[in-house]
């Protein structure tokens, strides 16, 4: 078998060192090596957005992002979205719950991560900006309407509280 590469990275605020295969994807590392199975894989080809995680705050498709390239990076997956200590849901998660912005829930982690990146970049997006930003995430159940509304709700609530919208 091919040689392995030693990497150090931070996953959901915890430092981790591990040896990865050169062809190992970040999705495989998270799901198989770290048992963080909240990150789902669907198309496995960077089309559907289901496997989206944050790499240094940027939304990436973990199904095609090599784990070796995550060396030194700060990774946030769906498991790291809620407030770490209280276990309280993040504002976006709460908005998704209230709007029932999911059905089967398979695409939901990816949408939440993309929307987190969106609100970090544009704290008060217009509806058009939300629609544009989330174009890379596919949902087959909801028809997107509740998802877009939930993201706007979370942004509004953050604006009311004067915070950045990323956590509660």
């Amino acid at each position, binding site marked *: 078998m091919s040689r392995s590469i030693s990497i150090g990275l931070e996953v959901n605020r915890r430092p981790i060192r591990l040896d990865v295969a050169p062809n190992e994807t970040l999705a495989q590392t998270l799901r198989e090596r770290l048992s963080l199975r909240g990150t789902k894989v669907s198309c496995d*080809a960077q089309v559907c957005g289901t496997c989206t995680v944050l790499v240094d705050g940027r939304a990436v498709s973990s199904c095609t992002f090599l784990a070796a390239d995550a060396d030194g990076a700060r990774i946030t997956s769906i498991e790291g979205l809620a407030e770490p200590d209280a276990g309280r849901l993040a504002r976006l998660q709460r908005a998704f*719950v209230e709007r029932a912005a999911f059905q089967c829930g*398979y695409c*939901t982690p990816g949408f939440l991560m993309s929307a987190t990146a969106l609100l970090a970049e544009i704290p008060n997006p217009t509806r058009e900006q939300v629609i544009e930003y989330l174009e890379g995430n596919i949902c*087959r*159940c909801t028809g997107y309407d509740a998802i877009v509304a939930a993201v706007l709700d979370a942004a509004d609530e953050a604006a009311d509280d004067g915070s950045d919208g990323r956590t509660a």
Partner: protein
Amino acid sequence: MTADRPSMERRSPPPPIGISVERRDARVKVTGAASFTADLTLPGMCHAQLLRSPYAHALIRSIRTDRARAMPGVVAVVTARDLDDVDLLYGHAIRDHPIMAIDRVRFAGEPVAAVVATGPLEAAAALQEIEVDYEELPFVTDPMEAMREGAPIIHPTAGELGSQRGFAEAEGPRHPNVSSVSRHAFGDVAAALDRADVVVENEYEYPMIYAYAMEPYVAVASWGHRSLEVWASTQHPFLIREELARCFGLPLAAISVHVGYIGGGYGTKGYTKIEPLTAALALRARRPVRLALTVEESILTARSVPARIWARSAFTRDGVLLSREARFHMDGGAYAENSPRIAFRTTRRFAGPYRVEALDVEALSIYTNTAPSSSYRGLGSRQGTFAGELQLDEAAERLGIDPVELRRINLLRPGERPWPGARPFDADLRADLDIVAERLGYGSPLPADHGRAICLSSADGGAEPTSSALVRLHADGSITVMSGSAEMGQGSSTVLAQIAAGELGVPLECVHFLHSDTSLTPYDRSTGASRTTTVMGLAIQRAAADIREQLLGWARELEPSAEVRAAPDGVLIGGEHVPWHEVVTRWFGAAGGEVVGRGYVRADGVTAESPLFWEVGCLGVEVSVDRETGRVRVERIVTLGDVGRAINPQLVEQQDIGGAIMGMGPALNEELRYVEQSMVNGNLWDYRVPRTTDLPEIDAVLAEREDGIGPYGAKGGGEASVNPIGPAIANAVANAVGVRLRRLPLTPERVWAALNGEEASDGESRPTGEGQMDGEGGSGA
């Protein structure tokens, strides 16, 4: 005329019925904690990969597996010849489908051999070392070609009828590539045609599409001592159990099919798919085996049934619909799967919610050398409604009657029987039509190149009324609801828990819900056809009633001399209020104990007549057409959920909105295509499903008239939007720019070609009538 109300007890619903409570699966789904079959690992679990045929039709001369068996990490290499102890054929309608190819492949992509290895990469590497010697045969991938004399015969020996066929075949000789013929006819069509002033006759086409449930097909199988456990992403665990029992010669009780959260179903995770194969691989590997398909493999496992349609409708000059006729050629693919039942449903769904004095519909399910087909949300109704609703607009134009008015003239009234022997119609679609027309602003001025249309649909909903449920009330008052219905995202675990809480007068937090599991939850035929709230809801209502009755009896046993009466959340014993669970502990005379309530639904009482309910659709759209590019944009959608009673209104609206957007796909973009022997766009780069940027403005309306047979007057509604949206978009395009396209999807190229009087160059030209409206289509009478 008044509604012919089903004779059941009516009472105002207790909370939390009618309230949009938080989904039970909300917290786990937004935190990534929800466990799907794709997330499962078992100790010692191995991974399987499949070698698939590159040919559409070929004989397998030999398969060499010795080099693959010697590869690192390989646990087993399996072909059909290695499974002589397994009954390899399955199929609930026709037993024609081998779990792996036996001596012959019938479509490009058919599994021919499998490798089980310690890891998926090891399995994939070993697949490369398998050598298959094929002898190519003539193939046919077009359903009309397959019907010709001299066409390659795909199943030289007809398969036995399966146990879940569910309908009678039409009589008469048929081409050997026709897997089933359904016919639905009544009245005197010839007499109706004689009397008609206007007859509309045309050909239509509904495309081959893919549902794209985002969790691809996945199963894990593990053998015990003469027992089998299977974890599957499935809507029909009990029907899978039946197939597994037959394939492996096991009693039903020895098989456990466990269902976790399901990453999308939409019908495509109905019936049996990869589960027997996974179990066979685990049998040979002597280890638990996981088989997880890619999206590309999933498309080759179950695409939808397309239809070529001839249809004719006859009207008086006043717009009264006299008769409808249609003939559907439906491409079921290499194996029958559910296509015979889909063809059957099509014959019941084509006429729509309209009164006709004569009907003659025939639907043929045809074998071709293409991927097997499966159910997909709105099966049969989408195809039939497309032809039927286009014909109404074509007729309206020739009659000089507004299309909405033409529909209003002919809509069935509540209580009318759509055909002799059918359940009386249980919806007030005139009222629904008025609501949608008003919300859509029907008739108000439009910008240039914008158009509107409203379409309706009616489907025989609910499938078979075969369900059972258990409700357990524990010593602390908490409740376990045990239902075989699968939670696939539609919210059934929330709605069914609401019904249990309402019936027993306990807070929703006290109600817990088990995932569907054939070894734990009692039999439920299937999750599909929008049946769960109605059918399983009734079973749970009856299980709760059984609990109440038992506890009243126990209270009387405890206090024979006292007056015992029921209260909403317990019993009154001589004026003392005793909660349910205290009756339990007092009766057992112990700190523990429980009462088990049983609820059954069969074809009896309110569920005696077929169908269980009429699943109606009434949907309006406004579109705009870019004349330069031919691109159609859906600007607005008005959905209407006529569900009798919304147990959870938010979830019903979500069904309607989700269904509408899902249905926009095949209306505008989606179509799987075959070139030569292969599907050429069976992947997500080339097959585009709707994205956020396609999202129009949506107005979701509910109409609750308590006219269903389900709990509190509920009836199903999961397919209400997906069925009429295809024709609504096509009719709105005609309204906008005057071209009537009778073939979906309305791709920019097809629309542009029609606008410019040219033929679209995107493949074979078919007589499906693309062109200017003036002077084409139909024959006067």
